[in-house]
């Protein structure tokens, strides 16, 4: 019987003697078992450090000796191992990767060591205000939705994960035909094909693979909510605001992407010009429209000094309201299109980037030429389409405003300054980490 074959994506190019390999699983934090948040991340790290029953030290020494790197990345809907290796060592690297995927070990001692490292990572997170605001925002924005599960887990969920959980998770996720391979850079296609085929052959058939959890679309915040993450001794605030955005499957996603480019996608965009260039209030002010397997928020990020936090939030809110009310100008639209058209080459100028785009499209269930089509759609939108997308998708009233700062110094002023707040919540910075 022929083994079911996993999907393979290719961007081979011999310009540099370097091969990139990604192997994606249909698992992300949304697939973590309830109460076991962080399981997918632990699984990938465990696979890397126990490949083929090796010790973690042996695995690390082998990978370094080959001139290679291998690390795990966990999103909400997908997870992947990403590796890079100097071309002359490709066969040995592939053998290791096959061991990691098909023959990991789940010993308790190694898991305990890994768990302790993962908990220490959470402590490190507490020192990083930019990461802290992002995590707090996502937890609050997706409250009650699978998207709110932290990929890193929490102290409590990490403590609950046992070797058997990871073994079951591995059995469920790493199945014949269920992976997606992406190969980029310098490598022999036959060799890589053989590796993928051999690996599929070594895995259990899909069989009774349990279905991926269905990801409902998240809801927008119920009102204009201030979510204050209280951290002592902050001279500066980290501010992340967001309302529900759009998904690539939405017809107006490209139009909203153009709107985001105009509003905060570049240095010359409205946010950066008003917050940084005109007022000097922050080193940066940008918007983002992320893509995941379900609808993501459009976020606005800036980090003014504590005394400027209130006027800065009010300014950004005003800019957002103006965008929603009046839309974009034809001049802005023309400039944004030139920027998107001309800068597109930098999303495809290396084999690794081309493979990454193809992998994203595959994992999100989008057409293989999604990124080219997306650009074409973005370049063809007119002002009416952009304004309509803004009107339909963005809201300054159903908006989450997460702020990391010292509450006793600026909390009351901030709360008073923000008009039409429907709720204000204050949480300690180390809560739920």
């Amino acid at each position, binding site marked *: 019987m022929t083994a079911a074959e996993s999907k393979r994506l290719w961007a081979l190019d011999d310009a540099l003697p370097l091969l990139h390999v990604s192997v994606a699983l249909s698992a992300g934090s949304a697939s973590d078992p309830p109460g076991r948040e962080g399981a997918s991340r632990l699984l990938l790290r465990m696979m890397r450090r126990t490949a083929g029953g090796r010790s973690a030290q042996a695995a690390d020494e082998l990978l370094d000796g080959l001139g290679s790197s291998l690390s795990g990345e966990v999103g909400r809907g997908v997870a992947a191992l990403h590796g890079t290796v100097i071309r002359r060592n490709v066969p040995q690297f592939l053998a290791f990767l096959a061991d990691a995927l098909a023959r990991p070990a789940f010993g308790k001692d190694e898991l305990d060591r890994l768990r302790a490292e993962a908990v220490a990572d959470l402590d490190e997170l507490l020192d990083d205000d930019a990461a802290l605001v992002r995590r707090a925002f996502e937890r609050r924005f997706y409250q009650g939705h699978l998207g709110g599960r932290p990929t890193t887990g929490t102290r409590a969920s990490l403590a609950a994960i046992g070797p058997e959980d990871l073994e079951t998770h591995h059995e469920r996720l790493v199945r014949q035909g269920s992976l997606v391979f992406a190969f980029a850079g310098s490598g022999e296609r036959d060799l890589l094909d053989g590796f993928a085929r051999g690996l599929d052959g070594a895995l259990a058939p899909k069989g009774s693979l349990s279905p991926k959890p269905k990801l409902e679309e998240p809801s927008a915040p119920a009102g204009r909510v201030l979510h204050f993450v209280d951290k002592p001794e902050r001279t500066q605030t980290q501010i992340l605001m967001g309302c529900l955005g759009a998904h690539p499957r939405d017809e107006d996603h490209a139009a909203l992407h153009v709107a985001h480019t105009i509003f905060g996608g570049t240095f010359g965009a409205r946010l950066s010009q008003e917050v940084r260039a005109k007022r000097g209030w922050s080193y940066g002010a940008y918007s983002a429209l992320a893509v995941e397997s379900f609808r993501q928020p459009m976020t606005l990020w800036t980090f003014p000094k504590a005394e400027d936090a209130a006027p800065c939030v009010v300014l950004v809110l005003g800019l957002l309201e103006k965008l929603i009310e009046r839309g974009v100008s034809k001049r802005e639209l023309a400039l944004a299109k030139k920027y998107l058209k001309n800068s597109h*080459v930098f999303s495809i100028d290396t084999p690794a980037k081309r493979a990454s785009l193809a992998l994203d499209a595959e994992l999100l269930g989008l057409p293989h030429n999604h990124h080219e089509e997306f650009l074409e759609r973005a370049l063809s939108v007119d002002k009416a389409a952009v304004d309509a997308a803004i009107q339909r998708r963005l809201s300054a009233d159903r908006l989450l405003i997460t702020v990391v700062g010292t509450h006793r110094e600026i909390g009351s002023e901030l709360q008073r300054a923000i008009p039409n707040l429907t709720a204000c919540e204050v949480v300690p910075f180390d809560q739920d980490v």
Partner: protein
Amino acid sequence: MTPERLAGLSDPAAPFGELEFVESIPFGPKLELSRYRLKNGLSILLLVDRSAPVVAYHTWFRVGSRHEKPGKTGLAHLLEHLMFVEFEGLPAGAFDAKMEELGADNNASTWLDFTQYQEAFPKAHLPVVVELEATRMSKLVLEHELVESEKEVVKNERRYRVDDDVEGRLEELLWAQAFEHHTYHHPTIGWMPDIQGFTAADCATFYRTYYAPNNASLVIVGDLDPAKVLRLLSRAYGHIPPAELPLEDVQPEPTQLAPRRSEIELPTATEKLALAYKGPALGDLDHVAASVLTEILAGSRSSRLFRKLIAEGGMSAEVRAAVGPHRDPSLIEIFVSMRQAKRAEEALALVESEIERMKREPVLRSEIERAVSKSELGLLGSLETADGKASTIGFYECLSGQPADAFARLSAMRRVEPSDVLRVARRYLRPEASTLILARPTPVSPSVEAAS
């Protein structure tokens, strides 16, 4: 390119437009760099790389925070910010707007020894970028209000990178204590009161003094036609006169004769330690062996300190080590972040024990081989884009005058013997030449007030 052909590319109307071919330099096994020079001293490095239809255009000035005076720290960095704002013929914001229109990915950085400006863009836009960059080199406008606004941006950058950042604070303190005379003492971003005190006149003086063609190298990499590029450069930069560069007035750091140690409280959950030894300059023959040493010590998960402190010891969250890549003798730095309730002294004892071992026993050849492989991977990774190639070239051009030094260093690394690592360990890892900062968590009691 023949002298006759080159002469045909020089702009006769430009007083400094005469082009001179200087040398060809192999850049790795497949590529070749060409160096030219304009009569005003501007060095031009061209690398044809047709792997993507883009061009990376970098301008490296041989000026950094090392050239600043007490009371004026952070001036090189503030000027870097202002170099995006306003120019003769380009009102405030127009430079960036034009770059964005071209789809250019542009940025800049300032460090101890250099300041560099970079952009990558689709190849068809090269003529526009040449004009913009030549304007930037000679026609900066410094208005009081714009300088004041940009000072606020820089102060916010400082809060972000240093004042509210635990590692940023530690790093700043470490260098300030390790260097007492050399200008490496002060941070590139500058002390806050100095940033506050700058005037437009300060910036103008610094610009006129250091932003001259004879103090810069252009590094242009990508899908380009060298003859066309040279013709454009001669016309655009050939009108900029050279400057009389001031004599560099940097004090060498005296030999450190006693260890320096201090403790601070920071708003962090865990203890940290930053330990530094006086190390070699980038151009010193010892620098390569010192790089191998820091890789073996704490460069990766297979390194000695990772095993001792994290994998086996279970006491630390992070450990890393590096030797500074600077023009003058720098620091060999070791940073450790502890886990909850673990004391930094526990890690320090193990770090010092491993250092003593490195001075006592030769490292294994397998350890050197891993360090070399990892460096090779890093180098190849940095060469994937035109921008990455230009950065690699510009960095070594600015620091050592050898733009392909990245490859020379890798070759030198392959020749490192255990005895070399032993020698540099004994030469540099001396307790009396060390500086140690221990960071303790400030007692934390966030008072979360009742929410409405």
